[in-house]
């Protein structure tokens, strides 16, 4: 093993390998890691809040309206939507980029996914508003 003296051999090396190729992580990767960490926390809260806080979990329409009457819940759910949307679309972007598309197509994909992300969050805000103002 030629590289046995190296603690981080290339074959199991990090995303970018400082020992050989001094390269920077992309903004996509950094954002993916940050949103990933937040999703991990928020999805756990989401699951617990939706399934275990109210006995038997949220079921009928009245349960959902009551759940969203708590402003802390609204903030956490909207934050979760924003973060998970960003993480999911960044992941899709990374998958698409691995097909080896040209820089112009990649830039177009980034723009389309950004617009899609804004639209998804806008939809979520509208839906939350509609449910919380239900009488």
């Amino acid at each position, binding site marked *: 093993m*030629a*590289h046995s003296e190296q*603690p*981080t*051999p*290339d*074959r*199991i*090396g*990090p*995303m*970018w*390998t*400082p020992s*050989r*190729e*001094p*390269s*920077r*992580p*992309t903004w996509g*990767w950094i954002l993916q*890691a940050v949103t*990933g*960490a937040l*999703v*991990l926390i928020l*999805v756990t809260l989401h699951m617990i809040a939706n399934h275990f806080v109210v006995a*038997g979990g949220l*079921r*009928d*329409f*009245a349960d*959902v309206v009551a759940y969203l009457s708590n402003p802390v819940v609204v903030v956490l759910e909207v934050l979760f939507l924003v973060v*998970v949307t960003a993480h*999911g679309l960044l*992941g*899709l972007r990374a*998958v698409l980029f*691995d*097909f*080896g598309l040209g820089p112009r197509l990649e830039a177009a994909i980034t723009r389309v996914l950004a617009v899609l992300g804004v639209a*998804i969050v806008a*939809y*979520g805000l509208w*839906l939350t508003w*509609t*449910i919380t103002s*239900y009488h």
Partner: protein
Amino acid sequence: MSEQSVGRTAPERRADGASTRRRGIVGWGDPRGRRLGGFAFILNRLTGLGVLLYLSFHLVVLSLLARGPSAWDGFVSLAGSPLFLCFDVVLIFGLLFHGLNGIRVTLVGFGLVVDRQRAMLVALMVIGAIVLLIASVHILTVG
């Protein structure tokens, strides 16, 4: 520098002589951290795309809430059917794998715990298996 600045290891320089393909669908099996993480990388993508698909479905279904109690409560009774509950178990598997493996990918990506990542993966998967078992029993019995 420009070629290397995209945050990827140049495959042709890799010590293990694994695939030299830089991109393309074959490149799915050519992540950094390959040997150990080869299958984990592919499963990470499959579960990621699966969860994204679920998320789209989830957001569309939630629009029933805007149409009032009768539309929503009709869906809830459908969601309690055995078929849907089995999908829920698959979803929990996807979430657990993607979330727990993501911890490893993130740490290793930032150059942390690189030399212990195999042990970390095993430990995370053991945790995931336990949670999946408990969640599955809960879903399939309580509903």
